[in-house]
């Protein structure tokens, strides 16, 4: 059985790239191949222009694996010091960096506590600090918000955005699609080891033949009459999101000409048009559709 099959993927420098896929799709295998933790039976992975797994490349990479474990006998500060040494960080820069990162992930109070006493969320914070210890150019994160409460998730998101602003490329592997949607510039979806979809978030979530129209009607019955008389036009379902105060959200499916005809009808009925935009699906809807229906877009 092939864990990955004919996969050709490029992560642009400076991007936040999300890798999605159901369990067993090959996401973790891809990361392991990139870092030399596993060896490919064919093909190659290059990171920052050099072969994946190259020792020199790993000095510029940060990695947070899923279900990471730290030696139970170490404290949080000792864990960071240990991995700082392995990353080749010299003193006194290492100690300063360790203390700074413990403060940054709000773990300074727990610096002298053995990691075996840490909660899942604390382990994730420490893991993230460990991953960015060497100011990596390429950051690989496998489920970074797993087990973290909403406040913690927000903090992790901010931290990752800081890393992006610093110029780091971030490769994110997560099941939390809302997080991926908020953070990532580009996304790839794997299914059974094959790449089934790849693109920017805007590109993937845009629905080609549907629009949302925010309108300001003189009266509800008048608007209802126009909607009933215009083919394809209907009130947007509540799930589509709330319109601004005093406005109503409509939607229309069809070609661009249908949308223009609907706009003409609305204007003719004295309805004000506040906004027209292509309707978007959530990343979760896209993901489920791709995985369930095999829709390759």
């Amino acid at each position, binding site marked *: 059985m092939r864990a990955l099959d004919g996969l050709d993927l490029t992560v642009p420098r400076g991007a936040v790239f999300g890798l999605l896929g159901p369990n067993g799709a090959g996401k973790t295998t891809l990361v392991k191949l990139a870092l*030399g933790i596993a060896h490919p039976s064919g093909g190659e992975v290059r990171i920052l222009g050099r072969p994946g797994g190259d*020792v020199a490349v790993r000095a510029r990479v940060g*990695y947070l694996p899923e279900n*990471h*474990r730290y030696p*139970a*006998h170490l404290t949080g500060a000792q864990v960071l010091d240990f991995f700082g040494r*392995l990353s080749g960080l010299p003193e006194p820069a290492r100690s300063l960096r360790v203390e700074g990162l413990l403060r940054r992930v709000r773990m300074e109070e727990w610096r002298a506590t053995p990691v075996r006493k840490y909660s899942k969320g604390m382990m994730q914070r420490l893991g993230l600090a460990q991953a960015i210890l060497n100011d990596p150019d390429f950051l690989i994160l496998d489920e970074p918000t797993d087990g973290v409460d909403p406040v913690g998730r927000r903090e992790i998101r901010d931290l990752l955005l800081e890393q992006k602003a610093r110029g780091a490329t971030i490769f994110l592997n997560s099941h939390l699609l809302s997080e991926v949607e908020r953070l990532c510039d580009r996304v790839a979806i794997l299914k059974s080891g094959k790449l089934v979809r790849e693109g920017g978030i805007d590109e993937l979530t845009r629905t080609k033949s549907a629009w949302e129209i925010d309108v300001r009607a003189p009266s509800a019955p008048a608007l209802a009459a126009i909607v009933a008389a215009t083919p394809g036009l209907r009130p947007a379902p509540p799930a589509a999101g709330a319109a601004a105060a005093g406005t109503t959200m409509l939607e229309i499916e069809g070609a661009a000409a249908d949308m223009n005809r609907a706009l003409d009808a609305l204007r003719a009925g004295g309805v004000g048009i506040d906004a027209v935009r292509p309707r978007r699906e959530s990343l979760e809807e896209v993901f489920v559709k791709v995985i369930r229906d095999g829709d390759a877009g």
Partner: protein
Amino acid sequence: MKIRAILLDTARELLYRRTLLFYFGVVTLTHLILLLALQTDVANGVISSVRVFGLEGHPQSSGFALDNRQAAGALGLDAERLVTMVQFVIACFLYPTGILLSLFATASLVPHMLEKGTIDLLLSKPISRPTLLFARYLGALLIAGANLVYLVGGVGTILAFKTGVWNWGFLLSGLLMTAYFGSILAFMVLLGVVFRSTTIGMMMTAIIYVVGAMVRLAHDYADWPMLITSPVARFLTRATVEVLYHVLPRTYAVGQMATSLILHRPIDSWMPVLATLGSGAAALGAAIVLFRRIDF
């Protein structure tokens, strides 16, 4: 810096497990007993009196006895003989104990390192796989070796302080046992890489330890396979014995050499030590080659 990091972490892990701390305590107790309980009076290299826990020692035709009679005059016991005797007894008890406890303490080092979530992190750092495994091995060897050096160095120094006799053979025997431990530890590292299980690694290493001692008899008394009637079974048995004898660390021969060093007996050949070191190096090499190829 990276190797030092692994060495430091290995030392911390071993201290956390406390098995070697227990051995350290036993050795320290031995030192204290020798320091506080053993009193000797030496004149011209001859023991005039020996007291252990206040009991006076008397040489007898069958050996040496302790009682609470006050001895008068010289006992006629050679100080060097007393030192070698005490060191021999200590070596007989504490060398095997030290090696077995060191094996128990270090058995989990490699399997723990190879656990999912731990190995992924280590391999993502800029350190090569051979360096990582070798540093782990070296850390275990240094800590266990330090305990053996503490044992022989302490006992040697205390006895020298009490009797004026330095037995370099005892110190050399400590180094010899450290080398033996290095060899058997390499086998445990190899088993750890293959099975990734502390229990299996420890059990199989204990078997290697025992078989390494027993196979020497089968090797030396070459005629015993004649008891096996089937020529094929006889050939296979002989071949197995010879392979095991040449591949495994030579527990019996090295132990015998250690006692010879302590008792100043001549050593016919250093070959068993070289063979033991060679088999350890081969095991460590195999472990490194295998570790380089494994997909985690």
